[in-house]
C-alpha cells in the first residue's frame, strides 16, 4: 500500500492537462519499463500489453485517463497578465485566490480579482465570469510575461499532496491519477491473464483518447478505472450524496454517457462479496467517463466502471480515502481473474 500511495502522490504532483499529458506519460513509462510491452499512439495514449499466466478466452482492456482539468493560456495583456480559458469542466467557484503553475517551466502564478473592499454588495455574492479573470505571474510587462510563458501553455493548480484526518488524502488531479496508479501497481505485479492496460488522454475534453485506444485494442470486455463524485459532505441530504468515502469502490449502472453492462456489474458485485471487499453502487445518474467512448467502439464493448469515491472533483483539493484505494485495487485485481466473459443478463 505504501508503494501505491507513493505512486499517487508522485502522479498528483505532475502537470498533465488534457492534450498535454507528456510528463505524466513519461513518469508512467519509467515505472513500467520491463514490466510490459508499451506503445504510445497518435493521440498520446500509452498502450501496455501485459502477459499473464494464461491467455484469456476474451480480450480484456483496463484503462484510466492520464489527463486532468486545468487551464490554457489564451492571451497576454499589455500589463503582463495572462488571459486563460478552462480545459475540462471547472466550477468557476474554485478558481479565485488559488495559486497555479503555468507552462513546462511551472511558472508560479495566482488567479485574483480586485479586492473585496472594491466590490459592490452584489459582486461579493456572485462569481465573476471566468473570461474576466487573469493569471498574475508577477510580470510587470507583456515582454517579461512572454519571456516566461507562451500562448497555449497549460496551467494547473499548485496544491500539495497531504494526508489528513482519519485516513484521507488531499491533492490535485487525483481524478484520475489514482486510477493510473492502481494500473501501474497491477502491471508491476503478476496477473492471471494477458491484459491490455491503456493510459488514455483527453478524457476531460470528451473522452477522445479512449475512442482511438478502444478501436486499436478492440477489447471484448473493458474496465474503466476512475474517480467519481462523492457528495457525502455537510449540507447534502443522504439521497443526493451519490456515493460515500470509506464504503469501497463505486460501480456505475448508468451515468450521462453510458448504460453499463448488467452482467459485468453483477459479476463485480459477486466478486467483491466473495472476496469480502466493500463495494457500493453509484446512486444517481451523473457525470460520465471514458466508458462513454469505449462501450460504443467498433461493434460494441461490454464495459464496467470501477471508481474511487472522490470529494471535490475538478478542484485543487480532490479528497480520497486510503481504504477505498486499497479496496479498489483489490477488486480490480480480482476482476483481472475473470475466467471468461461474465454471463450477459
Amino acid at each position: 500500500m505504501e508503494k501505491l500511495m507513493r505512486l499517487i502522490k508522485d502522479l498528483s504532483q505532475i502537470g498533465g492537462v488534457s492534450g498535454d499529458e507528456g510528463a505524466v506519460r513519461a513518469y508512467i513509462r519509467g515505472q513500467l519499463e520491463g514490466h510490459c510491452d508499451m506503445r504510445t499512439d497518435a493521440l498520446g495514449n500509452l498502450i501496455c500489453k501485459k502477459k499473464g499466466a494464461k491467455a484469456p478466452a476474451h480480450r480484456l482492456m483496463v484503462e484510466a485517463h492520464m489527463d486532468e482539468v486545468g487551464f490554457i493560456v489564451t492571451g497576454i495583456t499589455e500589463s503582463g497578465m495572462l488571459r486563460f480559458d478552462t480545459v475540462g469542466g471547472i466550477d468557476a467557484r474554485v478558481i479565485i485566490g488559488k495559486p497555479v503553475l503555468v507552462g513546462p517551466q511551472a511558472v508560479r502564478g495566482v488567479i485574483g480579482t480586485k479586492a473585496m473592499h472594491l466590490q459592490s454588495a452584489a459582486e461579493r455574492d456572485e462569481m465573476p465570469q471566468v473570461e474576466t479573470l487573469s493569471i498574475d505571474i508577477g510580470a510587470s510587462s507583456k515582454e517579461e510575461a512572454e519571456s516566461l510563458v507562451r500562448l497555449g501553455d497549460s496551467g494547473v493548480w499548485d496544491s500539495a499532496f497531504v494526508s489528513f484526518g482519519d485516513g484521507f488524502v488531499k491533492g490535485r488531479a487525483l481524478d484520475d491519477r489514482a486510477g493510473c496508479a492502481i494500473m501501474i501497481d497491477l502491471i508491476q505485479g503478476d496477473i492471471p491473464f494477458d491484459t491490455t492496460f491503456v493510459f488514455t488522454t483527453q478524457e476531460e475534453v470528451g473522452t477522445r483518447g479512449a475512442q482511438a485506444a478502444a478501436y486499436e485494442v478492440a477489447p471484448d470486455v473493458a474496465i474503466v478505472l476512475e474517480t467519481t463524485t462523492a457528495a457525502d459532505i455537510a449540507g447534502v441530504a443522504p439521497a443526493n450524496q451519490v456515493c460515500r468515502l470509506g464504503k469501497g469502490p463505486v460501480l456505475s449502472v448508468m451515468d450521462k454517457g453510458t448504460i453499463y453492462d448488467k452482467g459485468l456489474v453483477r459479476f463485480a458485485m459477486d466478486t467483491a462479496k466473495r472476496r469480502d471487499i466493500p463495494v457500493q453502487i453509484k446512486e444517481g445518474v451523473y457525470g460520465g467517463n471514458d466508458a462513454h467512448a469505449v462501450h460504443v467502439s467498433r461493434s460494441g464493448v461490454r464495459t464496467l466502471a470501477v471508481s474511487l469515491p472522490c470529494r471535490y472533483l475538478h478542484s485543487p483539493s480532490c479528497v480520497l480515502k486510503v481504504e477505498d484505494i486499497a479496496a479498489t485495487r483489490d477488486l480490480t485485481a480480482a476482476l483481472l481473474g475473470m475466467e471468461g466473459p461474465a454471463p450477459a443478463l
Partner: protein
Amino acid sequence: MDGKKLALTLAQCYGVSGDEQSAAHVAASYLKGWGEVRSDALGNLICTLRAPKDGGPHMMLCAHMDEIGMIVTHILPDGFLRVAAVGGVDRRTLLASPVKVLGREKLDGVVCSIPPHLQRGDDAKKIPPMEEIAVDVGLSFEQAKEKISLGDRVVVCHSGAAMGEHCISSKALDNRAGCAAVIRAAELLKDEELTCGLSVVLSTREELACNGAKTGAFGLCPTHAIAVDVSFALTDDAPKEKCGELGKGPMIGVSPVLSREMSDGLIRCAKDRGLPYQLEVMAGPTSTDADVITLTGSGVRCGLLSIPLRYMHTPAELVDVRDIESCAALMAEYIIDRFGGTEREAD
C-alpha cells in the same frame, strides 16, 4: 536582512485576529536584539529601541500582525465544521481551498464544495453565505470533538513563493508586508542617534475595529506615529483612482484624519531623498490602525504609509518587495531628517 525572505517568513506564520502568538513569536525574534520586547493584555508586540526623554518626542511605528481567517463555531453530527469569518473574508475564494485548523494540534482540511452535478440553474454563479460554509477535516464527530475546540482558528493555506523578479505571493501579506517594513525600518534606525524615543508596535486585532492598536498606542503614549498597512494595487478590473501601482513605492496617505504636517513631511522627504512614492488620498477615516492611534489619549500626530498589494483578503495576496524596502527607507529617512542627532546636509 533579506527583505523577500523576511516578508515571506512572516506571512507564512499563523496569526488570525485574537490568536497572533505564532506570528508575534517570529516577529519578536527579529526585534529582540534591538530593544526590550514585551506584550500587553491584548497581545500587541511592543519593542522600544530608544526610550523617550522625559516629555520629549516619541515616535511609534505600527503595523498590524493579525490576518483574516475563520473561527470554528460548531461541529456538525457528521464531523464537518461550521465556521464564521474573522475579518473580511472574500467568500469567492473559499470553496475547495486547503485549510489548517489551528487547535492544540494543527489539522489539515478542505473547505467543502458542493459538486457541479448538484447545482441547479444559476447556482454555479452564487457564492454561499458563511452559514453554509463547512470544513472537511476527515474526522467523525467524536474524533473531531477530541481534537478541535470551538473557537479554534482556521486559515486558508498558500505555501507562499517568489514570483517574477520582484514579487512575492502568500496569504497574510496583509499586513505582514507592513510588519516586514517596520522591522526593516527599525533595523535601519537601531544605531542612529535620535532626539526622539522610538518604539515599534506590531498590533493585534486590526481586522476587528483596530482594537489592538487602541491599547498598544495607549500603553506607549507616543507623540508621533507612522502606521504601515497595505492598500489596493491596480489590477485590470479595479477602479484606477482607488489604487496604487505595484513597484512604484509606498503610498503616502493624505486624509483629514491624518496629520497633514506628517503627510507633507513624508512627501518632502521622499522627494529630497529620491525615494519612490505614490499618494493615497482618502476623504475620511483610513480603515487602518492610524484611525485609532490618532485618537489615543489627548491625540497623536500620525502618518500612514501603505504598501500596494493585489488581491487583498484572498490567500493569494501579492506585493512587490521593492515597495516594502522603499517604505522602510522612507520611514527611516523621515525620522532621521526630523529627529536625527546630527545635522544632515540637504541634497
